[in-house]
């Protein structure tokens, strides 16, 4: 309990007591994204390095404890590569109690594709690391992500861009 910051505790109390408030406390994807959680064209040797890289971005921003990164890797080792949710896209995450302090998202694209062990959707070039503090507060962010990732134009921009601000702009304002 001592390691949970006061903002987090406040959020959890609201979550338990006021379900009407829950809607107000949901962040948008753009609220969670900034230059420091996006890296493009990253070189990694294997899937573990990719997850570590994405996880370290969340850690540096103060959103997770270091052990959360190990938890994300262990999830894949124990449950299989189900986190490769679509061709070329992985979304590593772990349980909140494994060291998540706040909701967060990091986005990295890989210079060279890596295999996670998912026979349908390997190899992976986009790794979106996610940390959540409960089972609901990130719902809006998840559905925004799902929508974005369904847009081929966004995907090809993400894979070809070397400009993080361009990606942020597109997420903020849309593609048109």
């Amino acid at each position, binding site marked *: 309990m001592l390691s949970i910051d006061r903002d987090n505790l406040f959020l959890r109390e609201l979550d338990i007591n006021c379900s009407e408030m829950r809607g107000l406390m949901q962040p948008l994807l753009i609220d969670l994204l900034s230059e420091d959680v996006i890296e493009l064209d990253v070189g990694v040797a294997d899937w573990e390095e990719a997850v570590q890289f994405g996880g370290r971005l969340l850690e540096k921003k103060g959103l997770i404890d270091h052990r959360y990164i190990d938890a994300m890797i262990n999830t894949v080792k124990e449950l299989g*590569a189900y*986190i490769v949710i*679509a061709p070329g896209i992985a*979304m590593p995450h772990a349980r909140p109690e494994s060291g998540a302090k706040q909701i967060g998202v990091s986005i990295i694209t890989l210079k060279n594709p890596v295999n996670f062990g998912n026979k*349908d959707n390997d190899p992976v070039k986009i790794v979106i690391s996610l940390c959540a503090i409960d*089972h609901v507060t990130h719902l809006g962010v*998840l559905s925004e992500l799902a929508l974005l990732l*369904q847009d081929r134009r966004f995907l090809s921009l993400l894979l070809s861009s070397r400009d993080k601000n361009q990606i942020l702009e597109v997420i903020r304002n849309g593609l048109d």
Partner: protein
Amino acid sequence: MKVITVCGMGLGTSLILLMEVQSIAAKHGFDVSGEATDLGSALGRKCDFFVASSEIASQLASKNALIVGIKNIIDKNEIENKIVPVMQAIADKRGE
């Protein structure tokens, strides 16, 4: 009818699947209540059908319910093509 979407943790892919399933069900006029859960919790649960990513689906063996495995969980078409016949069959069996 009741659907349970399943993933490793109950807060990532299962939620995405649940949102997609509910929107497809509404589009086709099926009355579906849903829940997102993790693999451990799902094993003992009953529902009309489970939806999970293919990797998770293969770990979820249930004698009582249908398990729909999805390869690409953000592909609405794949999900729609797989779950609409399932929901139709369940609705037909109930004479809905």
